């Protein structure tokens, strides 16, 4: 009898806890949706251009670029890196746009680009792994008419190695993929981190393990079994990668999502022998914010250009600082929610791929003349 009623009261307590969690997430979700609805509709102006896009295989970014191109140009085409020359020959686009051009790209990547240029077709690459793989990107960058990098510190680098036109183009987020969402209680946590357990991350998290063991924590990503005291939180660590769709759910279910940039000077995992510093923020910054989730991030120099710390994002310095802030924001739900809502609003307004692609197209083709575009549209 005693055990039975113990069970019943445990179930009741869990029910109440679930109700509390669900309630606060429900309130926030509705507020997020309202924020998104109130934003002015995005510009519907399309340039009369044919763009051949070559993905890197970064699912979230490729999807964002493709969606962004559909919004900004009349004829977007998506191709494959092995085939880009042949596709360019047949489709005769105004521009071949390559995302990142590393890792899985074929060995004849540079010669294909050279021959595309020889056809009189403009070529552009957008590097989104800078500065971590600059040893590789340096080898192909000079073959393009236009180089875009999401990393501020890499602009002078590409100029120095002889690229004719180099511009800074920050990352963005697909708001159809990363968005506020109703999730079930399995995705709920106090604290969530998703990403590879790189050494700099493990070092910081080592200090937090005792605290984490008392909280509802979810950590997702390879290499986290290297944490000191891993066993005490092993049940809350998933060592496999999860899909972007799953990440969205975990972000949506978390009270606090931690963002921690990887180190630019990691000899084991990087190919950045010149030790180019990292000033710019990662895609995850935008992705977390686009879910309407509350984000605590470490500070890259470039951060204030995109978010205002303390207003639409929260930041931390040391491990102790992070711990103090987690604790503070877990206890101050309203403040947390307000910051997250502002972060969502800022992201949807400013940090979409369509916005970035308009900048890119302006750089390649000159600023779009709205009247000109409208006239073209009528003729078409």
């Amino acid at each position, binding site marked *: 009898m005693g055990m039975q009623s113990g069970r019943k009261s445990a179930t009741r307590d869990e029910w109440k806890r679930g109700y509390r969690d*669900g309630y606060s997430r429900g*309130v926030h979700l509705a507020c997020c949706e309202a924020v998104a609805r109130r934003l002015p509709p995005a510009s519907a102006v399309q340039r009369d251009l044919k763009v051949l896009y070559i993905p890197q295989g970064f699912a979230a970014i490729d999807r964002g670029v493709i969606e962004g191109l559909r919004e900004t140009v009349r004829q977007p085409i998506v191709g494959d890196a092995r085939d880009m020359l042949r596709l360019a020959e047949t489709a005769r686009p105004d521009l071949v746009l390559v995302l990142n051009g590393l890792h899985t790209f074929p060995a004849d990547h540079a010669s294909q680009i050279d021959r595309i240029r020889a056809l009189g077709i403009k070529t552009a690459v957008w590097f989104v792994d800078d500065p971590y793989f600059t040893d590789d990107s340096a080898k192909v960058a000079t073959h393009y008419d236009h180089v875009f990098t999401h990393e501020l510190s890499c602009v002078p680098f590409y100029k120095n190695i002889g690229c004719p036109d180099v511009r800074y183009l920050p990352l963005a987020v697909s708001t159809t993929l990363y968005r506020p969402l109703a999730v079930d*209680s399995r995705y709920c946590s106090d604290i969530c981190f998703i990403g590879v357990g790189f050494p700099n991350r493990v070092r910081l998290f080592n200090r937090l393990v005792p605290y984490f063991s008392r909280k509802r924590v979810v950590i997702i990503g390879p290499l986290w079994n290297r944490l000191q005291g891993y066993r005490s939180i092993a049940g809350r660590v998933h060592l496999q990668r999860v899909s972007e769709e799953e990440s969205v759910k975990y972000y949506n279910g978390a009270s606090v999502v931690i963002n921690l940039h990887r180190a630019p000077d990691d000899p084991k995992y990087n190919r950045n022998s010149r030790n180019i510093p990292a000033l710019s923020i990662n895609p995850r910054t935008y992705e977390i914010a686009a879910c309407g989730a509350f984000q605590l991030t470490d500070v890259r120099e470039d951060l204030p250009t995109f978010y205002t710390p303390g207003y639409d994002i929260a930041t931390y310095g040391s491990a102790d600082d992070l711990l103090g802030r987690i604790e503070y924001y877990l206890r101050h739900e309203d403040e947390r929610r307000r910051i997250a809502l502002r972060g969502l609003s800022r992201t949807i307004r400013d940090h979409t791929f369509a916005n970035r692609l308009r900048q890119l197209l302006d750089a390649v083709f000159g600023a779009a003349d709205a009247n000109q575009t409208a006239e073209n549209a009528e003729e078409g």
Partner: protein
Amino acid sequence: MTMAASGADKGRRDGFALGLNHGYFHGRCAAVMAKYAQEAPLTRNYRILYVRSGKGYPYSPLDRAIIDSLSEMTEQLATAFPKDDVVGLAAAFKPDAAIVLDAIGSFPPEKADALRRLGIKTAVWFTDDPYYTDVTISLAPHYDYVFTMEQSCVPLYRSIGCGEVHHLPFAVNPRVYHPRKVDLSLRFDICFIGSAFWNRVEFFDRIAPYLAGKKTLIVGLWWNRLRHYRLLKSKIRLGQWMNPEQTSARYFGAKIVINMHRSHEDESFNRNSRKIPALSVNPRTFEICGSGAFQLTDVRQDLERMYTPGREVAVYDSAEHLIRQLEYYLNHDEEREAIAVRGLERTLREHTYRHRLAAIFKVMFGEPS
């Protein structure tokens, strides 16, 4: 162990799912409130003297709502009780306008005349029309401006020579009536809060068997007059006193809040010898919608000018119809919640006391709309 754990898991899942529903609805309401909270009221430079009703409930919340709104809208506000030396105060304060609430039996017409002689524009706002028209008809001519909550009384005051007569409906004080997190013990399917006037008793006796099968809450005086009192006894809080905040919480916690106007022929109101009908809606109409609740109301002629039936409130015209509507909206969560959210939005857009006072200012000071 495993069983206990899975019971706990299921408990958490179930609790979460319900909490998410309740929270999501609250969030939709909160988003509407946030939208209207951003609209700062226009501050005017008028000097206003407000003379309270000076009576207790239900006039005191009205006084509070009007003073709350006036203090947001003008920086030069003096308030007085009718028994105060209002004329002396006015002579010193030199207001542009004096607004008197109710005045019935509390503020002598001679005082209104004295205010007028000081060169102050005077206004009275009658809140009990048409039930005390035998009295108000002798008060009205003593004021420059007459405002009445009851549409049907506008021609009456005009017919006795009042030049400026305007319909000014009830409204809501959003500081008091608004959506809020409600303890689960206060959540009901169907809620009615109000006294058991005879027209309501007769009506509720007809729907009592239906209400008995639902999670129902009835709060108010005299409900033991029901023939079916024993059937509903466990659902009735007889004569339980609740302040407006508690009332608002129960509205928001209910899936459906019933509104039923009292009858203008009720014998308790015997100062309406002209039998002027009641066409305008009661304060509860605004208070239910302002609380973010779904309202099912009987139809007064004026209702359509305040809320769009089927869109911002739902309506019924008979006991049978009420039961059909209850059953329908209990089983159509999305429609019900959408109507409640739209009702809240309409309220905050048009039916707060700030809107009413802006209307008074417009009439008295010729403000452009």
